């Protein structure tokens, strides 16, 4: 950590693009620092570029030759005279290489230490740390002999997954619902694994067909001190992509919330974690099971719902901590007094299998009103580039109850006008009006069939 010399205005290098770059520029302003943007040539004219005090072009449009190159970002940090680098999410945000290059230059990195990034960056090592910290993880058992599989499966409980130890990418995974099925499929799976991966070793893992994705926002002081900023539910997903997030997670019992928060606190303490992070869990809706998924060692896309719910500025806190200052985060209750919900508006065509839909945005109008926040880099006349992800904006609404928030968000989403490209707004209109979502607590497997059903109804009507 570097302390900026007394009296000097600290310089923040923003090593990202899109809405999060705009967000980091705002946080830099918030703490009285000077934001400098490290941008690809394609983003030289972006909103973040115009809001920053200076822009340094680090490479061409392709992320592989610009945003994904730690040495270019570190070089830009040197050029900028940066005191701290904030890498947002994605790109280099969790790359220990960038953190190390900066450390060598005595420039702070607004994130955890490189060793923490390595410890949580790998699923196996993350699971090991979690287990050591007493965090509940998914029960898994290796099968030595396929003929004993059923007995092991009975001990684990059903449904469960048969996975190849040396498999990957979802291949060789089988779902079984009972002892008989397991006994029948295990030898078959072993044979196939042997054929496919040259090794027949299998393991069994509990499968939760109707679990929610709940995550806990943490902030560590780097010395074992931990603050927990509530939880978020991010269960509305399409192909593991989060679509809608909310804070707090609705309908969690006090006991269950305590398990999540305590486990997260223990993990952060064990890691002597520095800065903002997220501990992700599966929360089963059919049992009391809670299972650690992974830890994200960065600011998340969905951080605004936590900020809105608690009235805090997590990105400014990251910058302050990295600069050796008090992050100025209050202690908050486990459940905030208001509810915040976010929808991600993507440049994708929902009626065409969510195909990315870049192009000229001829006109855009964001909604206004109390409790409405829009995090975006998109303006009228912006040519949405094809090189990067499709996130156009995050529309966040805060209200005094979940019911009020859902309704307010529906009105706000309805008032968004985007012309020139197709967006995921119809999806949000669908979800925000759906009784299941309005009731709260849908699982991660809810969206896909619900959307299918909606599409088939539309097709029927059209015929």
């Amino acid at each position: 950590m570097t302390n900026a010399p007394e009296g000097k205005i600290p310089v923040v290098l923003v090593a990202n693009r899109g809405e999060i770059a705009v967000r980091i520029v705002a946080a830099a302003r918030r703490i009285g620092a000077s934001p400098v943007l490290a941008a690809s040539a394609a983003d030289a004219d972006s909103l973040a570029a115009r809001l920053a005090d200076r822009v340094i072009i680090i490479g061409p449009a392709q992320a592989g030759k610009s945003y994904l190159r730690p040495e270019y970002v570190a070089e830009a940090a040197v050029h900028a005279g940066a005191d701290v680098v904030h890498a947002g999410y994605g790109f280099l945000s969790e790359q220990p290489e960038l953190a190390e290059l900066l450390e060598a230059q005595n420039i702070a990195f607004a994130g955890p230490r490189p060793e923490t990034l390595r410890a949580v960056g790998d699923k196996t090592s993350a699971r090991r740390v979690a287990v050591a910290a007493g965090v509940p993880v998914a029960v898994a058992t290796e099968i030595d002999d396929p003929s004993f599989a059923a007995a092991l499966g009975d001990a684990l409980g059903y449904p469960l997954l048969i996975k190849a130890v040396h498999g990957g990418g979802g291949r060789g995974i089988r779902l079984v619902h009972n002892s008989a099925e397991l006994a029948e499929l295990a030898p078959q799976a072993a044979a196939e694994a042997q054929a496919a991966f040259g090794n027949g070793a299998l393991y069994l893992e509990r499968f939760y067909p109707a679990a929610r994705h709940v995550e806990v926002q943490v902030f560590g002081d780097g010395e074992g001190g931990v603050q927990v900023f509530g939880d978020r539910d991010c269960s509305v997903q399409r192909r593991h992509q989060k679509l809608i997030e909310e804070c707090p997670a609705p309908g969690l019992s006090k006991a269950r919330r305590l398990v999540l928060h305590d486990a997260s606190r223990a993990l952060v303490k064990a890691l002597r974690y520095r800065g903002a992070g997220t501990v992700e869990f599966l929360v089963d809706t059919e049992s009391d099971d809670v299972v650690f998924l992974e830890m994200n060692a960065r600011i998340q896309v969905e951080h605004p719902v936590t900020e809105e719910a608690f009235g805090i500025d997590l990105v400014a806190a990251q910058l302050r901590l990295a600069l050796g200052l008090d992050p100025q985060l209050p202690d908050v209750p486990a459940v905030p007094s208001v509810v915040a919900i976010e929808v991600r508006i993507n440049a994708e065509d929902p009626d065409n299998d969510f195909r990315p839909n870049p192009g000229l945005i001829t006109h855009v109008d964001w909604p206004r009103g109390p409790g409405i926040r829009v995090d975006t880099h998109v303006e009228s006349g912006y040519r949405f580039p094809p090189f990067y992800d499709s996130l156009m904006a995050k529309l966040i609404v805060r209200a005094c109850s979940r019911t009020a928030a859902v309704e307010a968000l529906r009105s706000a989403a309805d008032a968004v006008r985007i012309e020139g490209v197709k967006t995921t707004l119809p999806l949000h209109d669908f979800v925000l009006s759906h009784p299941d979502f309005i009731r709260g607590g849908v699982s991660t497997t809810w969206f896909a069939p619900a959307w299918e059903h909606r599409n088939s109804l539309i097709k029927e009507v059209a015929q």
Partner: protein
Amino acid sequence: MTTPSTPSWQDILDLVTQLDDGSFASATVEFRDVSVRVSRSADATAPAAPSALAPQVPQPTATVVAPPAATAVTTVPVVAAASPVAPVSTGTLVTAPIIGVFYRSPTPGAAPFVEPGATVTADTTIGIIEVMKLMNPVSAGSAGFLKEFLVADNAQIEFGQPLAVIIEDTSS
């Protein structure tokens, strides 16, 4: 929010005044999403197809470099007005293929790779760019003579920044 370099309405009015004060028989001015056509005869104003829909998003800042060139060599056939760095000049620009620090010599104190006025081939190394201790040679990119360097030795440079001007050898 606004567009520093998009002309304001006042700019347009000033332009029209200027055109009227001038001695043009006709004039057409198009800039971004703006076009102005005037004529002293009644024929010339047939509105060409509604002019180019260049994004009205403003162009940034002093440190940003001319055309976001994907290649390291850019031909500058006319006045290069876009970049605050590039002087008005003809020739071919050698632009930085990478962010870093530009050195004209292989090591401190050594003689420069080339001096202004020297003849170069496309492969002649004209300098190196250091990025985080890694050295990347920069070659002239075209044959001719090196008219001038546009950045100082030891300068911090960005991707795409014009480094030197090559006057191409048209005889070859």
